């Protein structure tokens, strides 16, 4: 395996963008990431993006986003219809093939353009599930109920997860849902799909994030403390909800093992858990003990930009390690209904 480091990370503040288009949101983020990498744009050999045309309602919208990259003279470029975390995986594999040494990866989403519950319903079985137009909150509520019953947990336990994430998000300038809130205040909210309340479901916002990767010795020249990718894997569970045990995540467990989560001490984990109850399901599936700090950035409950949130988890983790606050951690991303797909990236400081 080639050593590959995250040498820079930039993100926009999650927001409801009713004036800027995707290119205008993305452009300053990409410029920041390139500037922080100390590379010239022309030195970056590969570009990969993650986004969903379904969010924008425009075919090939991802191609139009290249206006923010400057694909002239023509560049090597690829795209995944996924969170940017999967684009990072593709770029990492590309570097492993020794075809390139460096890569620019970005993810972006404008979640508010369409009726999001309807848009996301299209990601399910088109014959027997989508015609019922299930929304993700309801599907996740089924999972939350099962998890609570199995583990003897209550809605108070969910509220405590929300409280901690919002507290962690307090110092995160990019987060939206942050600050102190009492358990009583949270429990006083009405259910939207019991046992879930609005505060249990990560809000949807617009934004973008960008990572620059560099292989080998060059990474040490570019930054004070390169953050090395020590393991990287992603797995997918069956799409049919009835096939899976929703109270655990087989795909997260295997991805975590393959990425080598348990090989050494993990200081912290940035988990993309868009629903409160999914954080403990992921922590357990990944084998994270009590001593592992969860979502010091506030996680998805603090700021949730679809198609970027997973890349942001990895970027936040890299920044925490680069700053010296931690030595080894992981960034996680999920996609699909009730944690169907999971990606784990284990990071370690120099």
């Amino acid at each position: 395996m080639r050593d590959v480091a995250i040498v820079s990370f930039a993100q926009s503040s999650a927001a409801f963008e009713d004036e800027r288009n995707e290119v205008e949101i993305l452009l300053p983020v990409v410029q920041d990431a390139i500037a922080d990498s100390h590379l010239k744009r022309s030195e970056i050999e590969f570009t990969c993006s993650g986004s969903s045309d379904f969010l924008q309602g425009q075919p090939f919208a991802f191609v139009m986003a290249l206006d923010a990259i400057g694909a002239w003279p023509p560049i090597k470029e690829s795209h995944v219809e996924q969170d940017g975390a999967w684009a990072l995986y593709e770029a990492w594999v590309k570097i492993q093939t020794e075809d390139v040494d460096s890569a620019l990866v970005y993810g972006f989403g404008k979640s508010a353009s369409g009726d999001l519950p309807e848009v996301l319903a299209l990601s399910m079985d088109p014959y027997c599930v989508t015609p019922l137009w299930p929304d993700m909150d309801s599907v996740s509520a089924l999972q939350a109920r099962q998890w609570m019953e199995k583990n003897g947990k209550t809605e108070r336990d969910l509220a405590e997860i929300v409280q901690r994430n919002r507290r962690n998000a307090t110092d995160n300038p990019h987060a939206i849902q942050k600050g102190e809130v009492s358990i009583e205040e949270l429990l006083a909210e009405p259910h939207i799909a019991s046992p879930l309340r609005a505060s249990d479901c990560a809000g949807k916002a617009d934004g973008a994030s960008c990572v620059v990767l560099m292989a080998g010795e060059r990474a040490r020249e570019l930054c004070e403390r390169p953050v090395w990718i020590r393991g990287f894997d992603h797995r997918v569970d069956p799409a049919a909800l009835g096939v899976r045990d929703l109270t655990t995540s087989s795909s997260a467990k295997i991805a975590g093992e393959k990425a080598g989560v348990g090989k050494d001490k993990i200081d912290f984990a940035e988990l993309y858990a868009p629903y409160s109850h999914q954080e403990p399901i992921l922590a357990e599936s990944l084998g994270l003990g009590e001593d592992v700090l969860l979502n010091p950035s506030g996680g998805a409950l603090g700021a949730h930009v679809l198609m970027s949130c997973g890349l942001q988890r990895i970027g936040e983790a890299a920044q925490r390690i680069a700053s010296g606050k931690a030595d080894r951690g992981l960034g996680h991303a999920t996609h699909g209904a009730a944690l169907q797909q999971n990606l784990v990236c284990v990071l370690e400081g120099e």
Partner: protein
Amino acid sequence: MADPVKSIVTPIQLTYDFTPGVAASKFLHGLANKKILGGACPQCKAVIVPPRGSCPMCAVATEEVVQVSDHGTIVTFSIVRVPSDNLDFELPYACITVLLDGAGLPFFHVVQGCDLDDVRMGMRVKAEWVEDDQLETSISSIKCFVPNGEPDADYETYKEHA
């Protein structure tokens, strides 16, 4: 065995709010005022029309708004012989990319007002706007392009776009 189910009908319709963006909003407001507004690249100086907020070659913000002419040169064309639900041009008609005077990129429209056999690269055309009371924040404020009577443009002036 029962008859096999060969098809089911599952209607899907999604409705979106379009966010054109800061730059394209200025362009669309310009059209409602019979003006064609682009964004100038501070680096390569090209005026991007329609603007999307960034120079696609240099990847820098095109913040300066520049008005370009509604006269231009046909860079390439095609004769269209199949109907489209959204266009009411009489078939066949000619679609073009037109490089407006002052613009750094050609854009797509339709030319009318001449025989199809006369449509050619280098032909000089001008925008034909809809009536003032029908102007709106839409590219359809320009009904079509028509020949402006000037002699053909020199190939050198548009060859990099051809």
